[in-house]
């Protein structure tokens, strides 16, 4: 299915949870295991971390995965 992740188009296998998606995205990424320090929104709505593993991503959705960086 087609997704937009952090602004970029991605094609992924169907039947993916948000947790799986985020895991792939940060393979060797900048957040701790379990997602500490990161958050996600799907089509503009925040998805609480507790729901990541049951949240099924659907074709055409836009996912934003954010993390804390220096700033402010």
């Amino acid at each position, binding site marked *: 299915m087609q997704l937009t992740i952090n*602004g970029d188009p991605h094609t992924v296998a169907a039947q993916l949870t948000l947790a799986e998606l985020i895991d792939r995205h*940060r393979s060797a990424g900048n957040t*701790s295991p379990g997602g500490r320090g*990161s958050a996600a929104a799907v089509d503009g709505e*925040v998805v609480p971390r507790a729901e990541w593993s049951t949240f099924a991503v659907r074709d055409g959705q836009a996912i934003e*995965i954010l993390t804390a960086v*220096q700033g*402010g």
Partner: protein
Amino acid sequence: MNDSFQLADELLASRLILGSGGVPSMQVLDEVLAASQTAMCTVAMRRAHPGTHGSILDVLERRGVRVLPNTAGCRTAHEAVRTAQLAREALGTNWVKLEVVADDRTLLPDPFELLEAAEALVAQGFVVLPYTNDDPVLARRLQQAGCAAVMPLGSPIGTGLGIGNPDNIAMIVSEARVPVILDAGIGTASDAALAMELGCDAVLLASAITRAQHPAQMAAAMAAAVSAGRLARGAGRIPKRHHARASSPTEGMPVL
């Protein structure tokens, strides 16, 4: 002097709050945290890049410094509220430095979007620390909306022009019922001291330290300046007078 201060339900051990923006490396950030003895440091929320190692959060955690997410870059109340929600999810804190700026050129807060965002976030249980301009009326409105502090600018972000209108800051302080934190425009130590002398409860700054030639040394300077200004405020300065007044006795002069 005990420089701790109460912000919302927290007792912070320092009146100098650090912005991490502009810091050239995590190594420098670490030095700056140490030198400033700060108890809280801002972070921004940005898209996670796969493959990057290490996080600013590790540095803050190691130093025992509380993380304060901001909504930098947001231009509408909508964006800012979403960003705050995401930060809460990511960082496990309901505190937020609320920034809603009108444009990228001036980086000045938009009073209308700011107040709307503040009201929404307070309603959602956030501890809202809004970056605002130096208008005493807007400061008042933000307090009425339930903000936990008001954070007026001295001058625009990153300019280092210091406190452009001290009268306005003094006016905000005089009627504030929550802490007043000076939050932009500081360029050097005397600016930070002045902010505290005007009655601010704390100072938040980033560029003045992170973009100085020697960030850690400037961090130490700012820590001392905040302390100096705080002490001076409490010590009751001499009034300004336009005529000189001798400090040595005028009696007992010999004839030589």
